[in-house]
């Protein structure tokens, strides 16, 4: 009986010690499983690292832009001193072209489309990719808005201009080479009825996203402002052709 007692005592303590570890691991797994949605909401470390790298690059680019603009301003004020009338005319034309090419903020009626990653993503572990908004989800929306006569478009305040690219780089969507994170807010200035009708048409671009269970919201506004493109990339290869333009 004595040896039996000793045997019992012998297994009790090591097993209890491992039981502490077992309980701790259970709790760890329990709380980790709960925190998955929070971690997974588009703000993961790799996303943030990419955003940091991109914004540092952006700052350097903007510093160069400031230097360029200062020298340009000096040239213009010199020209203004020479011939005031001519400069006014030139300035008017310049303003008009700048607004058209997205270098100035513009204001007007239009629609705002809110897109976000699917809520199903929080439950998905294997195919979380399927529930993310990709470049190929944003492009048809922008295309449809343009076809419906949108005069200015922006995605998360990134103006969509002639040289804008919308594409996925790793886990984030880049617009104008700036990484964006969900929710995506697409603003478009134009005739609100036409724009809303174009994207909201049955089996159209928004219906497709809704059928994939993405949260989509369309808002018609009477006035809003769309920001300009932050930095206009310089033209290195394309040079204007001298001579009369198309008449």
């Amino acid at each position, binding site marked *: 009986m004595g040896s039996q007692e000793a045997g019992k005592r*012998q297994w009790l303590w090591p*097993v209890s010690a*491992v*039981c502490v570890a077992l309980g701790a691991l259970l709790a*760890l797994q329990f709380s980790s499983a709960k925190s998955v949605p929070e971690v997974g909401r588009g703000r993961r470390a790799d996303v943030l690292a990419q955003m940091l790298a991109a914004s540092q690059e952006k700052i350097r680019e903007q510093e160069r832009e400031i230097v360029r603009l200062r020298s340009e301003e000096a040239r213009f004020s010199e020209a203004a001193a020479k011939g005031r009338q001519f400069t006014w005319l030139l300035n008017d034309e310049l303003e008009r072209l700048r607004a058209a090419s997205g270098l100035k903020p513009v204001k007007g009626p239009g629609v705002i489309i809110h897109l976000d990653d699917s809520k199903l993503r929080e439950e998905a572990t294997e195919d979380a990719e399927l529930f993310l908004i990709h470049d190929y989800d944003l492009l048809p929306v922008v295309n449809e808005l343009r076809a419906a006569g949108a005069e200015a478009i922006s995605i998360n305040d990134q103006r969509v201009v002639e040289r804008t690219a919308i594409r996925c780089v790793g886990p984030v969507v880049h617009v104008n080479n700036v990484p964006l994170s969900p929710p995506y807010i697409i603003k478009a200035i134009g005739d609100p009825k036409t724009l809303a009708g174009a994207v909201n048409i049955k089996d159209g671009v928004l219906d497709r996203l809704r059928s994939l269970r993405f949260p989509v919201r369309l808002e018609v506004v009477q006035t809003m402002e769309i920001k300009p493109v932050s930095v206009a990339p310089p033209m290195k290869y394309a040079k204007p052709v001298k001579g009369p333009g198309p008449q």
Partner: protein
Amino acid sequence: MILLPLLALAVGFLVVYVAKLSVPLALGDYVSVALLAALDSVLGGLRAGLADRFDSWIFVTGFFCNAMLAALFVYAGDRLGVNLYLPVVVALGVRMFYNLGIIRRYGMVRLAGRKVLPEEAYEPADSFRRPPPP
């Protein structure tokens, strides 16, 4: 006496739960296999204890070796692109059910007072044994 492991389980759970500890998402698989290794060790220890041939060295080294091998499998699986997590789950799972079956038999012997079956019925030939006392 049998309550001590349960108490230890509750203590371990509460300490981590109250401290709100959590592991990065990437290490989730490692926690899973460590959890399985711990559960397997507890069942194995319980079984050996009931068979009255528990050896704390075998128990402790078994726990750590199994946990490390399982972690190694998960890591290698990650690197090779083969889901080596599965064999760990299957191997430990099969053994846990087997040990549970034996524990159940011992429980029946002790609690319901059924006739003790020969030990060989519980212990396969390949299982480890303490060297017989000289």
